[in-house]
């Protein structure tokens, strides 16, 4: 038996009075994806190729991305990951090659873009592979997680089409992938000293981050005082908590170009800055009044 939906007359009139004055295109079911792009899918043995991973946000504004790229270690050797020029501004886990495990090798990544990114082809990173033995296989993305720039970290469905490749028994005669021509240092940056009761037991630590648009950042080094530069990651617990000695942070890109920045203390919050400005103004005003009063006294005493 067919049911009839009944609605009170008043409700119907109300619904009718709510005018349907416009007709809009419905939004399709939403899903963001990772796109793999390379020049070909068939290779010889011992051939190098480069594959790039892009994000298509499908019109949505996203600000956080994570996942892993998995490939068969018996067919491919991962040589290098290039993340210069990535849409990710801050890596939580910078994409890097993990040790092969059970015939598979992974590249894990996780990062954010403050303010979000929306676009059909946002560059994440690229990977250089060298083929090994003949056969067929796939490069695939797994555990993808894309989050909206909505203040809640709402997830969006994410998927990636796997990239299938074939390796013939021929030995490659093609030349390897050209190294990136990068003679520019990483971009200028400003490390901060800060402290917070919630990490490092409230001790002073250093934070730093910069970009290299060509080859990408390889690592950072920190030097306290006249000591040697040591490899470091942000946040970095300062060894010497009391020293007033200079602290320097060196950013090194994947071609070995370096940028060294001296440390400044963390910017004061705006409220404190206002108090500071008010204090300076107050002291200046008092000084002016003092000078003025002194002049008057001097004039009086000289006229007497």
């Amino acid at each position, binding site marked *: 038996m067919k049911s009839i939906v009944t609605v009170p007359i008043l409700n119907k009139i109300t619904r009718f009075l709510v005018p349907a004055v416009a007709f809009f295109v*419905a939004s399709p079911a939403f899903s963001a994806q990772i796109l793999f792009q390379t020049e070909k899918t068939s290779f010889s043995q011992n051939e190098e190729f480069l594959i*790039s991973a892009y994000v298509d946000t499908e019109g949505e504004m996203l600000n956080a991305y994570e996942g892993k790229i998995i490939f068969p270690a018996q067919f491919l050797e991962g040589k290098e990951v290039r993340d210069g020029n990535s849409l990710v501004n801050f890596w939580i886990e910078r994409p890097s090659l993990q040790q092969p495990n059970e015939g598979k090798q992974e590249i894990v990544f996780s990062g954010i873009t403050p303010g979000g990114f929306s676009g059909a082809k946002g560059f994440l990173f690229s990977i250089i592979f060298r083929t090994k033995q003949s056969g067929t296989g796939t490069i695939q993305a797994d555990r993808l997680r894309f989050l909206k720039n909505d203040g809640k970290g709402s997830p969006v469905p994410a998927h990636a089409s796997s990239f299938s490749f074939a390796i013939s028994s021929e030995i490659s005669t093609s030349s390897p992938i050209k190294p990136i021509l990068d003679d520019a240092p990483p971009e200028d940056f400003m490390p901060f000293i800060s402290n917070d009761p919630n990490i490092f037991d409230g001790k002073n630590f250093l934070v730093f981050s910069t970009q290299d648009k060509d080859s990408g950042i390889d690592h950072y080094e920190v030097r306290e005082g006249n000591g040697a530069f040591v490899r470091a990651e942000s946040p970095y617990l300062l060894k010497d908590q009391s020293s007033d000695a200079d602290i320097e942070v060196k950013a090194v890109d994947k071609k070995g170009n370096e940028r060294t920045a001296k440390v400044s203390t963390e910017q004061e919050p705006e409220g404190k800055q206002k108090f500071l400005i008010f204090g300076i103004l107050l002291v200046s005003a008092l000084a002016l009044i003092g000078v003025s009063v002194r002049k008057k006294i001097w004039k009086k005493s000289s006229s007497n």
Partner: protein
Amino acid sequence: MQLKKTQNRPLFYGMAAMISTLFFCVGYAYSEEYSSSQYTVLDPVMNAGGYGSSTNFSLLGVISQISNGPGSSANFGDNAGFLYYPSVSSPAVSATPGSSQVSLSWTASQGYSGWAVSGYNVARSTTSGGPYTYTSLGNVTSDTQTGLVNGTTYYFVIVVKDAFARAIASSTEISAVPVAAVVPPSGGGVAGGGIITTKPPPLVPTAETAAEFSGKAYPFSKVFILKDGQIVKRSIADAEGNFVGKLTGLAAGDHSFSIYAEDKNGIHGSLFTFPVYLTKGVTTVIGGIFLAPTISVDKSEVKRGERIAIFGQAAPNAQVTININSNIFVQQRSDKDGDYLLNFDSSALELGASSVKSKQALGSEISQFSNGVGFKVGTKNVKIETSGCAEKGDLNGGCRINLVDFSIAAYWYKRPLNAAFKEVEAKYLNGDGKIDLIDFSIMAYYWSG
């Protein structure tokens, strides 16, 4: 699909037809109600075609049931009923001159209340203000205008189109002067691994790589320009809220620029972010940036039935649309100082959590919505002092969400939280007792650099 016919409705149809005629002067006829296993459409209405209009509204056509808001499923999408203040945001545009060409890119317009963007037109002229010639594009956010005369100033406007290819918003005008190419310098390399880059060649190798910004915020507001998430420039808007800023000595390549402003009450506006490719030795101009208003409330909890003040700063004399809980819209006009205030009667709200956001329109420019501000509708009034600090993400209480907060979160990433930091996580992040990607996403949303 199985169709069902509704019976015994002559009285209602008669009344409905009379009201329809009176109010809209458009003839309607009810169609059959129908349903499938996935959805049901009640009282579908179709008009006979043709447009209706009056001084207050324009009827484009109706194929719809009468209900509020959009509905969708995996198999079907529908937007029906009276969609409140549908609008799209104006794009911000960047122009990079090349030899006999100008590369344009723009931020995607965001549609609200069901309005979708179908594409864009590029309007081009050698005279400011037009007349323009138009290039019709699909739903893309970049274009290269070629065949231009080097040394001539060209003016561009990006026009946003709806599903009927009608212009529904536009950017402000932006200009660029194509310049004859010189021999590109050696070196440089290909960005991002070297697959596809079709950028214009470098023009003047000795010139600096720079980006020039202009747009509108709030009168005398502090404007912050961020490059790749970190503050690199501060500026002050003028009495009309206009601001400009120029960054020099930049590296060529893809950059993520963000801009926000802090109003006279110290309230931070929302981050407006856009990706721009900078060409070596070329100044890229980015214009038409129209920031969302700042927004705040005077109570963290309002007793249901009493008023809550919703306020902020926008451009002077802008039309500010205040949106409460996604379904209540109120329009206000900001005063000459850009201030707006709405004393909202909370009777219309359910008990529990609410949130409010706002956007502004001035002429043909429409901003995006601001970030939302939360408050509770309850049984008492709890006043708050406006601190200007973001309600989430500020892990160290510094009133800024920046690399320090990111580093604190990064420290606890994949580690068990101690009791003290659990409280911080509960207050400033998503409160699930761990630090993962969601918490970083929250910080990225409230980011201030």
